């Protein structure tokens, strides 16, 4: 019995048109087997202009951003404003399932006029726009970047560092790096597109989807909004832990080999017991589990917590980070060293799960590892990336041929 979702979307064709904000949405659909055709202007998609670059120098064929977010896709170089684009787009859209339009409102709005005609000719077509604020509302024209989306959407206000000794913040709010407004919006866009696919399974009809990056970021701040709505209180950012109404008692622990370690004992009895076991293993003398500690907890809860936090620091400091991790975890403590991303590349657990895929890059004459999945069926990853990001226009000829068009029709006259 097949329990893996590999290629579960293999019957679907996605036309991707737009800027860097939409790359990730189509990447997710491509990982589940959809045929994603990225329609790029003849000078290349804007996301080819984002570094870092494999060559160290700006080069549209060496952008690591483009490589990361365009696996499994095919590239069709097509200037949508040129007259020769019309028959190509008409034929593509007649067979396509999904059109994804991303970018600034004005650009997407202009493109949408054209796409509405395509949707009229193909009522099964699902059209998804992804814009900074959505297609309606007073902010729809605002010019945004990932940073300003993270600001307006509320994530920045809850990320950062502890206030200074006077209770005032002397460090700015922080936008966690690596394009998360596009990640969050892309995940929601995928959810919405798949809802539309399920709806089409029932009714046979497509529809229009208007995704707002701003709203997507807004959904993703946990207790910040409920705490304000219900309690009228604003949670405050603090170093490497949850924003909270008050600045909480907690420090980063440092292991014997100098790594920061996230080591917290949550208010569950099972974790308190587990930590006592770990403290015992470490050989550090302590009073956890004794009547003396019980009395301290009764008399002065904050002092008891401080004692325990100090002990956590001592336990962590007594071992290398890796040992802390592999001793704490089997006891049921959800602890982890704060690792650099690259420490995962050779990790035994991820290797066993097939979390990474290896892709050859002729551009640099070597293989690169990419993360490829969020889940397995116990044997194989559900998502699969086997093809590197396309070169600009790499698949133009094959796509035109498959549409019954002259494969050289889009080439410059001198190249025909």
């Amino acid at each position: 019995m097949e329990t893996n979702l590999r290629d579960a979307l293999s019957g679907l064709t996605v036309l991707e048109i737009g800027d860097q904000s939409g790359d990730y949405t189509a990447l997710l659909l491509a990982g589940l087997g959809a045929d994603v055709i990225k329609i790029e202007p003849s000078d290349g998609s804007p996301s080819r202009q984002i570094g870092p670059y494999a060559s160290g120098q700006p080069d549209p064929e060496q952008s690591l951003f483009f490589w990361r977010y365009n696996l499994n896709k095919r590239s069709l170089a097509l200037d949508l404003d040129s007259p020769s684009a019309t028959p190509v787009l008409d034929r593509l859209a007649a067979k396509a399932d999904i059109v994804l339009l991303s970018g600034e409102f004005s650009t997407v709005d202009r493109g949408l006029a054209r796409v509405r005609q395509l949707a009229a000719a193909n009522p099964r077509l699902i059209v998804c726009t992804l814009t900074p604020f959505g297609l309606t509302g007073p902010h729809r024209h605002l010019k945004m970047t990932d940073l300003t989306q993270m600001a307006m959407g509320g994530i920045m206000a809850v990320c950062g560092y502890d206030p200074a000794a006077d209770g005032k913040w002397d460090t700015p709010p922080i936008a966690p790096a690596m394009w998360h407004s596009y990640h969050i919006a892309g995940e929601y866009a995928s959810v919405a597109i798949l809802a539309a696919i399920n709806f089409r399974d029932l009714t046979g009809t497509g529809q229009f989807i208007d995704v707002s990056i701003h709203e997507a970021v807004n959904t993703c701040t946990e207790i910040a909004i409920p705490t304000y709505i219900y309690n009228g209180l604003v949670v405050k950012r603090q170093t490497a832990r949850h924003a909270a109404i008050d600045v909480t008692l907690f420090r980063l622990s440092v292991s014997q080999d100098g790594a920061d370690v996230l080591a917290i004992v949550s208010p569950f009895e099972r974790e308190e017991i587990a930590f006592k076991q770990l403290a015992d293993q470490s050989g550090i003398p302590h009073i956890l589990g004794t009547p003396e500690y019980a009395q301290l907890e009764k008399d002065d809860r904050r002092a008891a917590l401080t004692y325990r936090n100090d002990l956590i620091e001592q336990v962590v400091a007594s071992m290398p980070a890796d040992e802390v991790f592999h001793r704490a975890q089997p006891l049921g403590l959800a602890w982890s060293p704060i690792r650099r991303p690259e420490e995962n590349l050779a990790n035994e657990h991820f290797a066993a799960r097939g979390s990474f895929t290896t892709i050859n890059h002729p551009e640099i004459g070597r293989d690169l590892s990419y993360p490829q999945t969020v889940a397995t069926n116990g044997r194989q990853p559900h998502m699969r990336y086997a093809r590197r990001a396309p070169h600009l226009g790499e698949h133009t000829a094959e796509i035109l041929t498959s549409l019954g068009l002259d494969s050289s029709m889009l080439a410059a006259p001198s190249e025909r």
Partner: protein
Amino acid sequence: MPDQSSKTSALDGVRIIDLTWLQVGPQATRLLASFGAEVIRIEWRKRAAVDFLRYMEPFAPDHATPDGGRSQGAARGRGVRGDFDRGAYYNNTNPGKYGVTLNLNHPKGRELLKRMVRDANAICENFSPGQMEKWGLGHDELSKVNPRIIYLRTTGFGKAGTYNNYVSYGPTAQAFSGLTFLSGLPAPHPPAGWGYSYLDHSPGYFGAILLMTALHRQRQTGLGAYIDMTQTETGLMLTGTSLLEHQITGQPTARYGNRMPYLDWAPHGAYRCLGDDNWIAISVQSDEQWHSLVDEIGSPVWATDSRYATAAARKADQDELDRNLTAFTATQERYALMDRLQSRGIPAGVVQKSSDRFDRDPQLKERGYFVDLPHSTIGTWPVEGFPAKLSASPADVGGRTGRAAPKLGEDNDFVYRDIFGLTSDELAQLREEDVI
């Protein structure tokens, strides 16, 4: 006659058995409920088993009543020990779901669960790895009961792999995957990390993506699926270009605060404004935007210096650039400044606090982002909406129940009697035996 399709929800006819708790699992089923799936949330009333979010801050104000709610005003609630129906975050996380109690430590409870799974499309859980197998309710057992079943489990590290008994909260997975490290000012500052469990949110979105993919296939082919989904792998997917950059350069990943090392964008950061801890984010993407910014701030001598004429030059000493710019922004009201910068085509956005987003943000208001929904104990409160408009099958966070979260066991009668056909006598017996 009204258009028939406008009455159809995307997930009409889909039934989800929802054993999830905390945030990561319930986030996924929340999205399914928004698209019309019948989500039956199963909980148990013993304190050691009940969803922690039911008794975790923030609480609804103690004065909130069933016919009131937000209209009665906000206040910090203390919660009432033993009352599991006043959790505010729980209410925001679980709208549109039915709520039943079921004791899975009781053999009859496990039998009843199997009966429900027989007539369901999917089951979701995020217990510690192996708990369902201990109950004899793992995927192998349940797929014997219903070969078409879609089984979604979400854990930190997964059931498969070498760390298959390891445990994780959101922050654990963030630390392990590298997301905590990537957030913050450059060393020697420590990582700032995330002020919340990002990896309780995103794996929830992925849970919905994989469930809906599996439901689409189930409709077409009758196949089920087994999804062993992890927070840590989700974290890997979100590490951007850092893994590739490391492989190319061999250098350890570094943090760069709010700056943008991958484009010729400067200034790029958060700048202090008038008021208490008020900030604005500004991203200058081009020399043209830079010159507009210089005009807007009154062309001070420092800004017209030729060394700021190009992006490369501006990036060369961003510390000083930021200090100079801050001297201006610190005298400015943040929203007025944002409006002025935007009117000149410069990307700028206020670093909005939760109060700004809820009380002030005109865009969220215009789009109807917050949705009022009733709860049977604490009354009517706004919950966070779905961030996209669908023209034919719109998301409705109130789902099939038209309600925010269920009270513990609120729908026992409806679910067990009306959906699964148990008789009143059977229900009374199960209650008597502490099964439901």
